[in-house]
């Protein structure tokens, strides 16, 4: 990479990360054979944005014993 190309890229951002949805999770599981990452991720064992939001809200609303 020459200096000109480097300078064209340095101030650009990575493409924006999309929200983690249920369909993202299903697709990750489906395509897990192509994936070299963690086992939990290939098994789809991660929070989606919506599921975590509901989970968090429910716990914060539940009074402690």
């Amino acid at each position, binding site marked *: 990479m020459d*200096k000109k190309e480097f300078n064209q890229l340095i101030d650009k951002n990575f493409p924006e990360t999309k929200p983690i949805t249920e369909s993202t999770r299903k697709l990750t599981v489906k395509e897990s054979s192509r994936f070299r990452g963690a086992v939990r991720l290939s098994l789809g064992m991660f929070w989606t944005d919506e599921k975590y939001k509901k989970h968090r809200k429910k716990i914060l609303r539940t009074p*402690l014993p």
Partner: protein
Amino acid sequence: MNIKAVLVSICKIHEATKGLTILSEEFDSEFLSFLQPRNELMNAYQHIIRAVSNKIGLREEKNNDVEDYTITNLGKALSHEYRAFFDTADYLSISLRKKITEELRPFSSDTIKTVLVDYYSTYRPRIDRITKEIANLRESKDIGKTDELLPSVERYNAELHKLLDIHSCIINAVPTLMELEKKQASKDKKGFYIKFGLVIITALATGFVSWLVAVFTH
């Protein structure tokens, strides 16, 4: 803040986030990973690359702004690291709150009060306060001044470790809580049988007296 001070804050906050991430995966009751803070870390990395490229002369200088550009990007990296920390801290505090609620739910408040003497006076208000303060800091758009970020992270990191201590204290108390609850239940059962016996005896005595009255009045 100078470059070295910002770098020190970035490194310390990053390591604190890593420590909480490792802990939080152990405490998640559903064994799920929380990927959301990693987006913040990716953004922080992007700004660090810009700052370093500029500092080592890889980036073409424009208007002699080397220091400004470097410090601005390191400041942005620090903000992302701060957000990643509070996303992770929020996740861990939520998991701990859930665990504590589930551990104590089967027991009556009298049993809890007897075994965990400080629960209602110290532990419970502290759990409530920490989880809510972290949740508010996570949701807040304004993150404050650059030099206030590291002290804030250190404070909440210490608070979370106190929460972990409370959790292990509760876990250790569970066998005693179960024993006391069992004793209380058998005491209640005994009390019920005594009351039931008294009711039967009173009914029989009343019946007998009524019969006597009926016999002698006729």
